[in-house]
């Protein structure tokens, strides 16, 4: 077997289409599907359409999930007040795994990566994975998902 290279001549790689004329997804009121594998008590309020899509993927495969159930304190000031914290987007209780979804460009995720490194130092037993924009675009290319531009 060889591994070669191939360009997309058909123009269908990861095209992300707006949901309607003149609308961007960021301006569309998020849909509120009935989730089957969601384990939380209150309906989740997603920060962006990518989080919603990840939730739908988890739900589709029947993977139990929670939305932002835990806030990890990363830094306190001298009076003990929290000055920096991090709430990963998803928690998969069966896997004991946190997921953080970011749709920022790869070059702009430095701050989030720094938070993640900090979390890993302070909470070495916490398992967490970060999903970048390119991961979302892979999903989008495969499943025809949409996101805010």
């Amino acid at each position, binding site marked *: 077997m060889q591994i070669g290279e191939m360009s997309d001549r058909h123009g269908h790689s990861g095209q992300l289409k707006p949901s309607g004329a003149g609308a961007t997804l960021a301006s569309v009121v998020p849909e509120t599907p009935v989730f089957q594998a969601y384990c939380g008590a209150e309906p989740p309020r997603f920060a962006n359409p990518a989080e919603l899509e990840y939730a739908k993927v988890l739900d589709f495969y029947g993977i139990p999930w929670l939305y932002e159930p835990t806030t990890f304190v990363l830094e306190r000031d001298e009076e003990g007040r929290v000055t920096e914290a991090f709430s990963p987007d998803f928690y998969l209780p069966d*896997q004991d795994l946190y997921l953080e979804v970011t749709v920022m460009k790869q070059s702009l995720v430095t701050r989030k990566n720094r938070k993640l490194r900090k979390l890993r130092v302070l909470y070495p037993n916490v398992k967490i994975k970060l999903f970048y924009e390119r991961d979302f675009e892979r999903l989008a290319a495969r499943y025809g998902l949409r996101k805010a531009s």
Partner: protein
Amino acid sequence: MREIGAELAADYDGREPLLVGSLKSCIPFICDLSRAVAIAHHLDFIELTGYGEDDDRIRFLKDLDVELEGRDVVLVDAVIDTGLTMHYLVRSLGLRNPASLHIASLFERPYRRLVDDLPVRYVGFTIPDEFFVGYGFELQERYRNLPDLRLHF
């Protein structure tokens, strides 16, 4: 392929394992793998709905033709990525009381795995985080027929 086939044949010698392919991307791999397994074995196939199609929940589009009770089953797929599909299959088929249930995958991306408790026993290669087509891998049903694996931009 020869290495996986030889390993599988040694592990299941005298047990006539059932290789279960998950359609459709597995087709070239399971055909080549079957030819490389030099012991008696059986083949069957399942097909699942994919995310983004009409269903809101994964389900079987095509179920197995045989019973799994007491059988040694090897699930065969082309790649394990997040592991979500395999997780569903292992849960579903595990309920049918096979004697054993393991996974053979040509490729894997362990760094993208969301589920860790998969019985993965045979893996060909760990591949980089790139999009591939060919050798069963498709993009909107194109390119499956390419004989080689190709990097897609």
